[in-house]
């Protein structure tokens, strides 16, 4: 078999596309060399191979395909034959762009709604937190008040406490009483006590046994019923070093030194 005959036998397989790579390269080199007989045989073989399409079972494409194609070619013909990237869209904007815009709009509306929901939720949470903070503050105050009451009750009831009566300088004023515990502190209380003057309050003083000078202590004022109860957990001096207790009327905030005559006085030891 000549070289030409060898290549001639490959023509049909080449036309149908079934030649393996090595033979394919050989044949292409031969065709490129200008063998007119093989070139003509190849052209005829390609025509023959194309006839194998009739082996395919008959089928018909959908009418929609024809519709899409005609819509596209009409649009391109109207646009001067310029190909369009997308086959169908009367507005010239591709469907995916519309879809993107729609998605963006939906997302924006959702985001705005979601933001409002979140803001509302945050406000609710803030209000709840504020209410809880106020509740906690009230509980702490109640707890402190309860502790103070308990502390005062212990001072008033403990046998180690010493009761001190404070006599008024004005006979029209009520008597006050105090109870001093050497470890728990000092309590003073009274009833039907008149309110001090405007912008003034009552202040307790401890009169030192050694120096005889008044040492400033707590300030307080009676309620609308004239009742008060005050406690000093850490008095400025011990009971044994204190000669007497005195109460004066002082400006708001109290004074380092008495600015008025004592209204009540009671001896301690």
């Amino acid at each position: 078999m000549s070289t030409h005959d060898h290549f001639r036998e490959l023509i049909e397989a080449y036309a149908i596309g079934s030649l393996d790579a090595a033979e394919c390269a050989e044949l292409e080199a031969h065709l490129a060399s200008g063998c007119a007989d093989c070139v003509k045989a190849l052209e005829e073989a390609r025509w023959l191979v194309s006839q194998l399409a009739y082996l395919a079972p008959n089928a018909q494409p959908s009418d929609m395909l024809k519709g899409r194609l005609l819509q596209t070619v009409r649009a391109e013909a109207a646009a001067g034959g310029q190909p369009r990237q997308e086959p169908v869209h009367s507005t010239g904007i591709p469907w995916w762009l519309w879809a993107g815009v729609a998605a963006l709009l939906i997302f924006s509306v959702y985001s705005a709604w979601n933001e409002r929901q979140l803001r509302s939720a945050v406000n609710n949470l803030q209000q709840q937190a504020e209410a809880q903070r106020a509740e906690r503050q009230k509980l702490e105050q109640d707890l402190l008040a309860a502790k103070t009451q308990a502390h005062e009750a212990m001072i008033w009831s403990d046998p180690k406490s010493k009761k001190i009566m404070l006599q008024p300088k004005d006979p029209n004023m009520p008597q006050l009483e105090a109870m001093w515990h050497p470890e728990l502190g000092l309590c003073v209380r009274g009833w039907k006590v008149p309110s001090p003057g405007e912008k003034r309050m009552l202040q307790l003083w401890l009169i030192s046994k050694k120096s005889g000078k008044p040492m400033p202590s707590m300030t307080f004022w009676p309620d609308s019923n004239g009742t008060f109860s005050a406690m000093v957990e850490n008095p400025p001096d011990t009971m044994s070093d204190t000669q007497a207790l005195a109460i004066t009327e002082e400006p708001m905030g109290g004074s380092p030194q008495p600015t008025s005559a004592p209204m009540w006085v009671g001896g301690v030891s």
Partner: protein
Amino acid sequence: MFLAIFSPKGNDEVSPDATLMQQLLRKDVSAFEELYERHSRIVYSLVLRILRQGTTAEEVVQDVFLQLWRNSARYDLSRPFVPWLLTLARNRALDHLRLKSERQRRREEQTEEFPQIATAAPEYEKALDEKRRAERVRSLMGSLPAAQKKAIELAYFEGLSHSEIAASLHEPLGTVKSWIRNGLLRLKEELQATS
């Protein structure tokens, strides 16, 4: 010798398809519609046989006809239209069927954008109309031994190589080569005999 009966078609004979393709150069939508009406069935049948999936087949057919519309200037009016269109459709369908393998790139290089097919169609192309030729092709292929017919179908509809077909059918490589070549030669004889 078969080649002796092949002769170029006369240039004075202009087929209806060639006339429509000339009109397509002027972006004549009605010519496009006429071409589609004439050939969409066989193109779709071929592509569907290769891809076996209707939606994908329609996408490929759409691609083929849009190529026809957009690149009509690149069609050689002296060449027979239908074999050229079928070759274009087959290539597009096989492109979808397989990944970009070496063989596929080779086929694309070989066929470029539009397929290079016979510049001189055999005389018997004129002797049979499309319907009768289709019947002859089916009749001849139906008469082949099942394994030989299968080998040709694997090559044409699946785009498989000789080696791949041999492996698929568990047959010697030489046998597969003979089946395909002899089958095609018998088809040629059959069409000649009919004419």
